[in-house]
């Protein structure tokens, strides 16, 4: 526990000294905030909470990016093995990855909130408790996803390729950039199987409709399951050594984690109201016609 906290502090310091981290985790979401809110919500204050939900979701989902690259670099350069000869366990290494990410993402999220309220005149704060819940579960899920990616790839290049693919999927299939109700129906159906969608619609619900935590049960459950699965997997797949190979058992486990998402998606398809809720929230911004938001460019 104490080791995890020491590592968390050191890794936060390292992150703040890393220009790429500062840019992608702090500056980039802010650029996005100004772009989205400035372009699509300037003449339509009612659209601000909806757009803010997207920006927050993107900030949270970005967690996996820097973390996966950092961990792969640490492993490939033999940095992890130096920790391994010291009394540092995988638990401390993983916990510090998530904790440092969490602590550094919270200020970014708060700044986005304050800017939305002060600069873009968002009329209310939304359900802050719900926001906090979703963001916490979201960061754990996406940070742990970053750790999983780091474990299944063998070089930073490989990591970047996988990151690009996932990043695009999260941005374009979850409703984070193009609102879900505007997407073709088959993508909307597919989106129900992605944890990212639950994060985005959950945030829309608490910010736009200001619903209570009880009413985003499906979203909370989906993200809690994702977080638990991702944590479990990252711990199972973790490897210290560049030469270590991901074993068949670990690969089977990774494949098996699809099952809960399949079940979740199926349940949501049959009984859930996620898509209709997404539509209701979307309609709040259609008091005026809006253009399609510009496609979002992924970091390299």
């Amino acid at each position, binding site marked *: 526990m*104490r*080791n995890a906290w*020491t*590592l968390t502090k*050191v890794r936060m*310091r*390292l992150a703040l*000294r*890393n220009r790429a981290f500062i840019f992608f985790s702090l500056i980039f979401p802010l650029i996005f905030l100004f772009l989205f809110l400035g372009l699509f919500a300037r003449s339509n204050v009612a659209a601000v909470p909806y757009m803010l939900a997207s920006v927050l979701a993107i900030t949270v989902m970005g967690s996996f990016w820097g973390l996966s690259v950092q961990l792969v670099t*640490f492993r490939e*350069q*033999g*940095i992890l*093995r*130096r920790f*391994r*000869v*010291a*009394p*540092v366990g995988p638990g401390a290494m993983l916990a510090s990855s998530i904790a440092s990410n969490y602590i550094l993402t919270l200020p970014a999220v708060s700044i986005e909130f304050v800017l939305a309220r002060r600069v873009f005149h968002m009329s209310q704060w939304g359900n802050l408790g719900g926001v906090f819940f979703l963001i916490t579960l979201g960061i754990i899920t996406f940070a742990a996803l970053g750790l999983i990616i780091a474990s299944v790839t063998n070089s930073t290049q490989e990591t970047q390729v996988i990151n690009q693919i996932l990043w695009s999927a999260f941005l374009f299939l979850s409703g984070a950039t193009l609102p879900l109700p505007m997407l073709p129906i088959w993508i909307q159906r597919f989106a129900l199987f992605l944890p990212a969608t639950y994060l985005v619609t959950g945030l829309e619900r608490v910010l736009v409709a200001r619903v209570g935590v009880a009413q985003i049960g499906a979203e909370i459950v989906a993200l809690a399951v994702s977080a638990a699965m991702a944590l479990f997997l990252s711990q199972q797949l973790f490897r*210290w*050594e560049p030469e270590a190979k991901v074993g068949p058992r670990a690969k089977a486990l990774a494949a098996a984690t699809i099952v809960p998402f399949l079940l979740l998606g199926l349940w949501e398809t049959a009984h859930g109201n996620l898509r209709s809720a997404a539509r209701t929230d979307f309609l709040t911004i259609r008091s005026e016609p809006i253009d399609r938001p510009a496609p979002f460019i992924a970091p390299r």
Partner: protein
Amino acid sequence: MSAPIIEVHNLTKHYGDVQALRGVSFEVEEGEVFGLLGPNGAGKTSTVEILEGLRAADGGIVSVCGLDPQTPGPAFKQEIGAVLQSTALPDKLRVAEAVSMFASFYKRRRDPATLLKRFGLEEKRNTFYSHLSGGQKQRLALAMSLVNEPRVLFLDEPTAGLDPQVRREIYTIIEELKKERKTILLTTHYIEEAEKLCDRVAIVDQGRVIAQGTPRELKQRSAGTTRIELRLARPETDAALKQLDGVADCHASDGVYVVHSTRVPQTIVSLVKYLEAHGNELSSLDIAAPSLEDVFLELTGRRLRD
């Protein structure tokens, strides 16, 4: 005598088709500096990293401080310190931060500031790891390996790739540790290092210990031969020199002929006669006591470093 602090018995390890260790055995007593001397690929790192708990052995018995590194509990890592052959620290970590961070992982710890001072890193305490020179990185690695006052210290090629002056600095540090009676397992492919620093040496080749003992004992094994180093005005073939009286072996490198002789006076007489007869001359001649290099050459027919 108490039980050895490190025990290695019939250790084996393979990587795919490569049999890296083929039954390595040795023991290290508390307070001893023990060297594993061998060429590239001999299996030194494999052995040491099994003892550190970083790699899994295929077979054999190992014990460090009475604990099994293959199933290391939390106690094991508290007891050892290590300088690894291939490792690094995050680029943007400062020297002092690295030492304090590692110190905080241990129950028994030394004052980071004192360590930095001792290793001449005081002025570099706020420097990023990526801005250190090779020698400074190595001194930092040594400082970090000592933060927990380890009972056993593993140094895997602590001077590889460093220039001679920096290497001597590291020797001084290791000699100081030796005076403090620290148990050290050191690997190297420098003869000089093994002879100078180690109480006992195991010569490792192709995954086997081919000889072990004190440097003096090992050299006595080749006491039968004396090394004569020659420079000649004109080149001769190794084969011609091997024909001379009392010569056991001869090889040339960089214009120096190293002749191993069992009877030095006879060899020299016949050498001079031979050179006269062929219109050649001696430019220099040195008679050297045998070194561990000669021992290795005698045992394997190869030189330690090509």
